[in-house]
């Protein structure tokens, strides 16, 4: 946990002595009560209701009436991290005798917000500083003028994010600030987590629960008064299996081939993985997590650039290992973070040149220079390997939408993967996981996998019409949807909009869609190939061309899905859909936006974009 994450309480030496003395005299129960007391004091201070140094008697009401406050753990999650943390936190809370309500922002009834008392928020950031898809409606409400005043609310925000993005933890910051504006008081300052969120998140949880439990030492369990739906921990599937994110299943690759035809500008792959005997289950819409390894050749190059030996001993999170092993599967060793830049700058004498850069220049520099490039450009000999890895981030699993249905291929997971390839400094480079899948995952090899449930990308009832919109690998979940619908004999209509570069080579799963069309499993399909003609055509253009029918389907209750690229596809498609409704219903822009907010709230507009 870095200093910036926990702004230090700058105590005087005298104060610190008193705290230490007090601490030594407390039993655990008293300690919890004290921490709650100080938290309340803190939030009072933040609200400005209490003067610094004022008498403790002026504590906020909450601390004065312990045990009567309801606790809600509210999360917004897209790829499941916050959801999982929230579920664990709720379980831990129950163990401590608290009675939390666990709620997903995607399903939360916002009118109940005004009745909330204690709110622990876990929220990730997606897109460009945006909330996770399912939480979009919640944000709309909270950030609108309709949002209620929240004078009785005490809250704390755990923000998940990724430091390599410009708007680090943007969504968390927004909520944290907004609740303050609405009159809520912070239980503690927000904690922002990078991709290695596990430890800071756990510490945050322990601290928050300690604080709240202390509040209600003598409390009888409070009756849930909030309007949140109680949702089960969002890993029903994972729960059935012994395997999960931290304990992935060694699955066997049974097919790995290039799906794009000869001559394609793409290298999109179809990969089939056996999960036989794993107990892993998934539903259409879920993703597969891959715990990847770095390219051994890159590990060697990096060791060479560092003048370090691969068998140098090292300790990572208490485990003894070697440097080579650690670089292979413990750390991200491709893209560099700001932190790495600072770290390396300190180790070498390059701090000057790095800190002289503006933040835009730093971002630009990091884009063009990955770890190995920085090490090569600012070489250093004779440092302790441990010092080097201290600047690295842990290697994160990658998610891939599942392109199959267990109803058709029991024991298998199919993926559609577009390998990330680029060149830096004249060298070909590959994405960690996609490169691993493309280059080092031949048939019969093993991959460490787990299921990442996505309750916000689900097929509706069998007879409901669905409109599926996707480009490139974004078509993957729709293959899963149609396999499922075919197996179930669903009679709901379906319409697929698919986009890629070239008809001839990039029409992913072409024969399968054709067969589904012929068999009426798929009712309609519209395709847009952007590079076949001088004039570029994308899926949003096809949507506009079919405006009348798209609107008719919406009015007939169709569920709309969008999957694939987050930067262009999702906003452009959204815009096209807004226009369709504006034009077809002859309504204003705002009303069209309302239309989609309603759809979203009803779970009829679901997006899975990355």
């Amino acid at each position, binding site marked *: 946990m870095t200093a910036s994450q926990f702004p230090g309480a700058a105590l005087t030496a005298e104060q610190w002595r008193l705290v230490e003395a007090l601490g030594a005299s407390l039993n655990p129960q008293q300690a919890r009560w004290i921490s709650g007391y100080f938290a309340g004091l803190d939030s009072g201070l933040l609200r400005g209701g209490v003067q610094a140094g004022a008498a403790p008697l002026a504590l906020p009401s909450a601390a004065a009436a312990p045990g009567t406050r309801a606790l809600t753990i509210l999360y917004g999650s897209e790829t499941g991290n916050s959801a999982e943390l929230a579920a664990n936190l709720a379980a831990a809370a129950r163990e401590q005798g608290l009675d939390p309500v666990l709620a997903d922002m995607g399903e939360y009834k916002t009118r109940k917000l005004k009745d909330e008392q204690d709110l622990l928020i876990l929220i990730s950031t997606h897109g460009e500083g945006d909330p996770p898809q399912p939480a979009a409606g919640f944000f709309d409400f909270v950030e609108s003028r309709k949002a209620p005043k929240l004078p009785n609310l005490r809250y704390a925000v755990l923000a998940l994010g990724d430091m390599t993005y410009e708007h680090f933890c943007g969504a968390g910051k927004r909520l944290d600030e907004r609740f303050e504006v609405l009159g809520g008081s912070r239980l503690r300052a927000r904690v922002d987590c990078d991709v290695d969120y596990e430890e800071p998140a756990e510490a945050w949880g322990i601290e928050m629960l300690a604080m709240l439990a202390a509040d209600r030492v003598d409390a009888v369990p409070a009756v849930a008064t909030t309007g949140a739906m109680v949702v089960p921990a969002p890993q029903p599937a994972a729960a059935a299996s012994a395997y999960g994110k931290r304990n992935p299943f060694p699955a066997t690759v049974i097919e790995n081939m290039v*799906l794009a*035809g*000869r001559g394609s500008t793409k290298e999109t792959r179809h990969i089939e993985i056996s999960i036989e005997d794993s107990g892993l289950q998934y539903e259409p819409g879920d993703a597969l997590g891959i715990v990847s390894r770095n390219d051994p050749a890159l590990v060697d190059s990096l060791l060479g650039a560092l003048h370090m030996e691969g068998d140098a001993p090292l300790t990572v999170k208490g485990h003894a290992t070697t440097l080579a092993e650690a670089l292979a599967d413990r750390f991200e060793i491709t893209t560099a973070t700001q932190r790495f830049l600072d770290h390396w700058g300190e180790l070498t004498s390059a701090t000057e040149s790095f800190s002289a850069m503006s933040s835009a220049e730093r971002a630009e520099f990091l884009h063009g220079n990955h770890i190995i490039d920085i090490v090569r450009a600012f070489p250093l000999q004779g440092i302790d390997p441990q010092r080097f890895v201290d600047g690295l981030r842990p290697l994160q699993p990658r998610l891939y939408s599942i392109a199959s249905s267990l109803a058709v291929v029991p024991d298998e997971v199919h993926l559609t993967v577009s390998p990330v390839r680029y060149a830096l400094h004249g060298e070909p480079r590959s994405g960690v996981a996609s490169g691993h899948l493309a280059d080092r995952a031949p048939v019969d090899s093993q991959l460490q996998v787990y299921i990442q449930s996505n309750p916000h990308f689900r097929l509706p009832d069998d007879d409901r019409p669905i409109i599926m919109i996707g480009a490139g690998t974004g078509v993957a979940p729709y293959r899963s949807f149609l396999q499922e619908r075919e197996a179930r004999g669903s009679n709901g209509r379906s319409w697929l909009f698919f986009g890629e570069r070239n*008809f*001839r080579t990039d*029409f992913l799963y072409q024969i399968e869609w054709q067969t589904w069309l012929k068999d009426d499993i798929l009712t309609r399909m519209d*395709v847009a190939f952007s590079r*076949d003609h001088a004039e570029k055509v994308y899926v949003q253009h096809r949507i506009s061309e079919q405006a009348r029918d798209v609107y008719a389907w919406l009015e007939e209750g169709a569920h709309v899905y969008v999957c694939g690229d987050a930067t262009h596809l999702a906003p452009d498609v959204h815009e096209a859909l807004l226009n369709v409704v504006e034009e077809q219903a002859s309504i204003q822009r705002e009303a069209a936006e309302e239309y989609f907010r309603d759809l979203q709230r009803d779970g009829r507009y679901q997006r899975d974009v990355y």
Partner: protein
Amino acid sequence: MDIPPTDRSHDISQPLERLSPDETMKAESDYLRGTIALGLLDRITGAVPGDDIKLMKFHGIYQQDDRDVRDERRRQKLEPAYQFMVRVRLPGGICTPEQWLKITELACAHGGDTLRMTTRQTFQFHWILKDSIVPTIRGLHEVLLDTVAACGDDSRGVMATVDPQFPALQAQMAALAKQVSDHVIPKTHAYHEIWYGAERVASSEPEEPFYGRTYMPRKFKIGFVIPPSNDIDIYAQDLGYIAIAGPDGKLEGFNVAVGGGMGRTDQAPHTYPRTATVIGFIPSDRLMSVTDAVMSVQRDFGNRADRARARFKYTVDDKGVDWIKAAIEARAGAPLEPARPYEFTSNGDRYGWTESDDGHHHFTIFIQNGRLTRPLLDALATVARAHKGKLRLTPNQNLIIADIAAEDRPAMEALLTETGLAAANDQSVLRLNAMACVAFPTCGLAMAESERYLPDLITKVEAILAKYGLEKEPITMRMTGCPNGCARPYIAEIAFTGRAPGKYNLYLGGGFHGERLNRMYRENIGEPAILEALDEVLGRYAAERLPGEHLGDFTIRAGIIREVTEGRFSND
């Protein structure tokens, strides 16, 4: 005159349901419209649906797929790499530089940077994707070219001798070929509607006054030849006209040859190639009426029940030459005169510079198998831009830069040298006299490689010829990827027809100028056996031939192969 009675159980007099399904398809196509226009709009597939594939042939368009990737695409869950071959209708094989440049431009824009000059003197585009067909055809339209009936059960592209020996006759023949071609093409407005986007206009006139709803029983091929060149292989035409000039060198009329054709099927003895029979002479003014007469006899009496027997050559054999001649005379309203004497010396091209008696110069360029790719296309475009005369496609898949004025010759010579085209003819005599059909990867009927393999095989045969001192001997050698015979193999001295990848039938004994069919010498053999057989035959030829004796004649005289006297005996 009446047509003598005959068995009519297989012809157009029968109800459709007694005939081959293709007859119903044609009849119900609304004069070749089908659902072509609709199928072009379907973005989910690069193909067109069912019957439209056949109907589009009448518009000069063949649906194909890249066979090199067929298997891998199936595994990749992609449909076959559908694409279209588009064949231009170019009567007599003559085009202007402007047309040449347009065609080159279209090939580079839509046709995978390649063009194919065919054995019937025209261009084929390959690799045209479905949504590029319309722009391709509209582009051709800009230079007054089209693809009408370049394929299908109709009268195909009309051939004519391009050898510049007799320029006046040649010009006359070219004009007649165009006239006949215009006369025999389908008249349906469908082509304009589908490809040019024309409106359909209601009319009380019959849409196809000659063809009717069911067109011909099968393809029908017409050609004009000017002896002594038999460059167009007159004996392979359904209807051939042999130009007969008077002592003054002026055209008097034509000997009429009927019932030629190449296609056969392996293991189907009722199918066979046939050399056309010369049945008489007509003065030139009877050309159109006799053409109508011959075509209408085939239209009305040709076999429409069995497509394998639907070509005119089988009608001629089934009815007998005398009956056919009588029927033609009845339709033409007058008897044919006795055939006039004529003589052919070769069916090959005369390479390099030639000068005709009108003072024009011509340069014939060897184009291996008629295949034009880059940078050859660019070199030829450079020439076309500078050229003031015409360009002629030869029936041997070569190109003549024709009608160069004497004063322009030095500049053209320099240009040919500069572009490297002057050196194109520096090839062995064997290579210059060889032809191969298209076959893989585009031809859907190919069983073995042809165009992509023959050049290698020739290199190996050249070594054998060198061994026996035969390098200067002109020998016709032709290869096709299947027994259909698109490079007219059955009249070559040495021929190969594909049976399976790497396997061919080997034929010997064809006439040097295309006058006699060859016979199968070895069946279904691979390269080592081919080379072994040729080594033996050519060794004997070198040792035992008479002065001036051609290989085909020699193999028969030496008893290496039995002469084929008539097509129907070629499988005996």
